[in-house]
């Protein structure tokens, strides 16, 4: 990052922290209602039905490592997995998790391991239900297709960084008539998902999954800050536009 951008970035972080503290420690956040996404409502219903009917779930966390720009989407995938594991803790079938990067796989396995500890039941096959399906973009998809075409599944969630190759996963999913939700931070992935999938999250909606799936204060505050910042950026763009038209800039 260049030295001229750093002060602006620092200011940006300070704004985030100040707005975050205001929302977190005051009742101001209660004045704002988070609009529920229909796709996520349907996902929750589908997870409930899967547990009720003893069917399985497949969570695909994408292919991005955590130490690059797409890592945030991978973290959202992990948080989604956490919420799904929480909801499906009573299910006979633990969710199958596939990932395309090593660190993501280990974190997903650690989530599964925690559930195993909570349930206090033995058995090693539970841990192996989270695994690396491939280390490159297409090998990850090729490895994720067999678990996603499993007859015993009923719900699939693709949350993370997945490119246009997500079309292959959704296609195999559509053939089996499973419920699927596609949420990726890749633009190409989003457009392919929109064309192929019934339930899709566009743009920054992927970052709203934790807030919509859990009641934790932190996620709601994070989403509110995101909205405030969005309006802040819109205001800046409009001001610059007016100044440009006015001949000031």
């Amino acid at each position: 990052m260049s030295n001229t951008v750093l002060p602006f970035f620092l200011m940006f972080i300070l704004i985030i922290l100040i707005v975050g503290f205001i929302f977190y420690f005051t009742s101001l956040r209660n004045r704002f209602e988070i609009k529920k996404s229909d796709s996520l409502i349907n996902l929750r219903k589908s997870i409930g039905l899967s547990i009720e009917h003893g069917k399985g779930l497949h969570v695909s966390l994408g292919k991005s490592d955590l130490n690059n720009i797409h890592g945030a989407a991978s973290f959202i995938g992990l948080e989604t997995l956490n919420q799904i594991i929480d909801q499906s803790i009573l299910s006979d079938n633990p969710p199958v998790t596939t990932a395309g990067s090593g660190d993501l796989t280990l974190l997903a396995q650690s989530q599964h391991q925690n559930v195993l500890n909570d349930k206090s039941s033995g058995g090693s096959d539970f841990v192996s239900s989270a695994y690396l399906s491939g280390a490159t973009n297409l090998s990850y998809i090729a490895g994720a297709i067999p678990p996603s075409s499993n007859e015993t599944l009923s719900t699939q969630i693709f949350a993370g960084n997945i490119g246009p190759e997500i079309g292959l996963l959704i296609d195999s999913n559509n053939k089996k008539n499973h419920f699927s939700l596609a949420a990726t931070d890749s633009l190409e992935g989003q457009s392919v998902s929109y064309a192929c999938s019934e339930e899709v999250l566009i743009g920054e909606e992927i970052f709203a999954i934790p807030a919509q799936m859990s009641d934790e204060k932190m996620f709601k505050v994070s989403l509110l800050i995101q909205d405030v910042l969005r309006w802040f950026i819109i205001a800046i763009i409009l001001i610059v536009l007016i100044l440009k038209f006015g001949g000031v800039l």
Partner: protein
Amino acid sequence: MVYHRDHFNCADLKIRRSAMKKIFLVIISSLSGILLILGLFFPESILGIVRFYILDWAIIVGAVALTIAIINLFSVHWNKVFSNEKRDFASPFFIVGFLTVLLVGILLGPNHKFFINLTSTTIISVEASLMAVLALSLGLASFRFFRKKQNLLAIVFGISTVFFLLLFSGILSLGEKFSLMKTLNTALNTLPIAGSTGILIGISLGAILTSLRILFGFDRPYHRK
């Protein structure tokens, strides 16, 4: 009675140990996160050097994690081959392919021409066939699109896809000798850029907030709440 007390003490110890582990992890991750951010803003100071060390360690940990994940993948396929319950016809191919590449790589070295040719030929042919399947799937999806989705957004999506396909094919650039056509062409070409920039701004905001949440230790993806 004694058994119950011992059992209670043991459970209590387990909970305390787990809580200690969580606190330790939170301190380590938050401290590393704060050091990384400070190193970013003060690159000339010692914090900048610390930041580079932490990033180096993260890369090493990532590489080790990948190795562990690959061993785990191998064991998953091994179990699929040798267990009666979850047999998968693809698993033997994976094991044979994996062992072949591993042995050739160890014996000849990763820079040997035969090894490079072997791996790249396999990867390119498999990926090319997957891309072909993807192209077919997308073609079919575009035919099914309007049957599945019949709302305003779908209509806009469909029309804009066809329109921009035609635009990027260069059909409007034929009339660029007219200044109006040139302006129109430029304006229309900036529309997809404007749209994608808008989506990317939203994604970047979400990514920044998610990263800050994790860097400051507010969100911990490594353990359950």
